C-alpha cells in the first residue's frame, strides 16, 4: 500500500505560463525506495519538493491535482495540497523530511542540530532529548564517530559526516517519508557508499523517494524507478524491470546513455 499517492499532479512556477510538471500520477510505496531519474530540467526535484510543499517557502506557485499522504491515525489519505496553516506545514515537513544535495548542518553543536526538530515539536525533557538524539545518530551510522564530541560544532565534520548528520536530524522526528535530493552528488565514493548503505537500512522504518543523476545508484538501491522527461512521467515500474526491460524507448535511450 502506498504511503503517498500523487494523482494527476501538475505544477507551475510563479510567473511562468507552462507547467513544469504535467499530470503526474505516481505512488510512493511504503517502506520502499522510489528513485526519480531523468535528464536535467525534467522536473525530478520539482516533484520531490512538491511532496513536502517546500515550494511554498515562496509564493505564487500553482498546483493542480492531488498529493495524498496516508494518515496513520485516521487511516485515511489526506491531500497535502489543501494545507494552508503554518503549523500544518510544520507538521507535514516533520512527517515528510528532506535531505538536500549539499549538506546543510546548522551552525550549532552536533547535539543541537539533531535536537532542533525535536524541540520545535515540543520535546523539552532533557533525558528524552538525549535518548532521541542518540537513537537518531545511531540510526544514521554516525554515533560511534561523534559520541565523544556532541557539544562540538557540526561545521567541523567531514562532508559525508555532515550529510549523515542531516539524515539524523530528519530521522529524529520519526518521519513517515524521507525525500533525498541527490544526496551523494557532492560526496566522494566512500562516503557515497556509506550513505547508500544507510538509505537501504532506513527503508525498514521510512518510505523513501530519491532524486539521482547517478543511474547506477538508482539501480543499486531503489525498489521502484520513475523516469521523467520534460515534466512528464514517461515510465514507472520496479527497478529491475526499468533496467532490464524498459517498455519505453525514451527510457531505454536514457539509461543506456543515448541521451541526457
Amino acid at each position, binding site marked *: 500500500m502506498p504511503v503517498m499517492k500523487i494523482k494527476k499532479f501538475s505544477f507551475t512556477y510563479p510567473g511562468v505560463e507552462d507547467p513544469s510538471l504535467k499530470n503526474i500520477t505516481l505512488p510512493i510505496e511504503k517502506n520502499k525506495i522510489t528513485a526519480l531519474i531523468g535528464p536535467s530540467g525534467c522536473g525530478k526535484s520539482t516533484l520531490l519538493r512538491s511532496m513536502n510543499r517546500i515550494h511554498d517557502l515562496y509564493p505564487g506557485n500553482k498546483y493542480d491535482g492531488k498529493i495524498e499522504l496516508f494518515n496513520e491515525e485516521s487511516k485515511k489519505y489526506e491531500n497535502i495540497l489543501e494545507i494552508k496553516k503554518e503549523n500544518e506545514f510544520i507538521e507535514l515537513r516533520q512527517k515528510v523530511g528532506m535531505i538536500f544535495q549539499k549538506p546543510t548542518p546548522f551552525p550549532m553543536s552536533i547535539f543541537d542540530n539533531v535536537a532542533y526538530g525535536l524541540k520545535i515539536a515540543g520535546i523539552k525533557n532533557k533525558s528524552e532529548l538525549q535518548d532521541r538524539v542518540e537513537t537518531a545518530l545511531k540510526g544514521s551510522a554516525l554515533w560511534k564517530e561523534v559520541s565523544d564530541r556532541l557539544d562540538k560544532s557540526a561545521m567541523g565534520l567531514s562532508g559525508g559526516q555532515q550529510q549523515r548528520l542531516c539524515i539524523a536530524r530528519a530521522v529524529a522526528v520519526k518521519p513517515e517519508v524521507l525525500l533525498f535530493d541527490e544526496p551523494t552528488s557532492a560526496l566522494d565514493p566512500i562516503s557515497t*557508499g556509506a550513505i*547508500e*548503505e544507510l538509505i*537501504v537500512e532506513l527503508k525498514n522504518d521510512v518510505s523513501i523517494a530519491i532524486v539521482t543523476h547517478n543511474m*547506477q545508484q538508482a*539501480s*543499486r*538501491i531503489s525498489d521502484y524507478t520513475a523516469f521523467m522527461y520534460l515534466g512528464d512521467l514517461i515510465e514507472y515500474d520496479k*527497478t*529491475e524491470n526499468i*533496467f*532490464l526491460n524498459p517498455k519505453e524507448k525514451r527510457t531505454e535511450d536514457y539509461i543506456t546513455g543515448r541521451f541526457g
Partner: protein
Amino acid sequence: MLATFQTNLNEVKEKIISIGDGLVTANTLILEALKDCDTKKFNEAKGFIKNISSKTDEIDNAIIKILALYTPEARDLRQVVAYLKITNELSRACANTRSFIRGFTDVCNDLDVKTINEYALPMQASTVNAIKTTVTMINIEDPDELQEMYEEVLIEDNKADDLYEMIERNLIDQAEGSSSFKKYHKMLRALRKSEKIASRAIAVANLLVYIKLGGNFHN
C-alpha cells in the same frame, strides 16, 4: 559494494554449488555402478542431474539481473562473469554425464566390462576427484590454497586423459575383427564423455583462479 549485491551473489554461488554437488554425487554413483553395470545405480545417478536446464536458466537470469542493477567492477565483475561461464561448464558436464550413462548402459551387458573397467574405473575415479576438488574450490578464498587445489585438478584431468588413451587402444584392439565393433565404438564414445567431464572440471577450476587472480580468460 552494497550488502544486497553480496546477498544476491551468494545466492547465485549457492545455486552453482548445488549443481556441482549433484554432479559429484551422480559421478560417484556411476563409479560404483561401473563395476557390475548396475542399472539401478545408474538410474539413481541420473536423479542428481535432473532439471539442469531450468536451474541454469535461473542462475543466468539472476546474473543478468546483478549485472543490470549493480554494475560490478574489478573483482566483483570477474566473479559475476566467471559464474556465468561456470554455470555453462557445469551444465555441459551434466549433459556429458547423462550421455555417458545412456551410452554405457546400452552396451555394457554385451561386452567384457571387466577388461574395460581395468582403466575405466580409475579414469572415472579421476573424474570424480577432479569435480569434487573443483566444487570445493568455489568457497576457497586463499589464493595459495586455490592454486594448490587447481594443480590437483590438473593432475586428475591429465590422469583421466592418459587413462582414456589406454582405454581407446585396448578397445580398438578388442574391436578389430569383432562382430561387436559397433558396440565397442559406442562404449568408447560413452567413456569419452567421462574424460570430457574432467576437462570441464579443469575449465571451472581455471575460472575460479581467474576470479581471485585476474588476468585474461584462457582455455
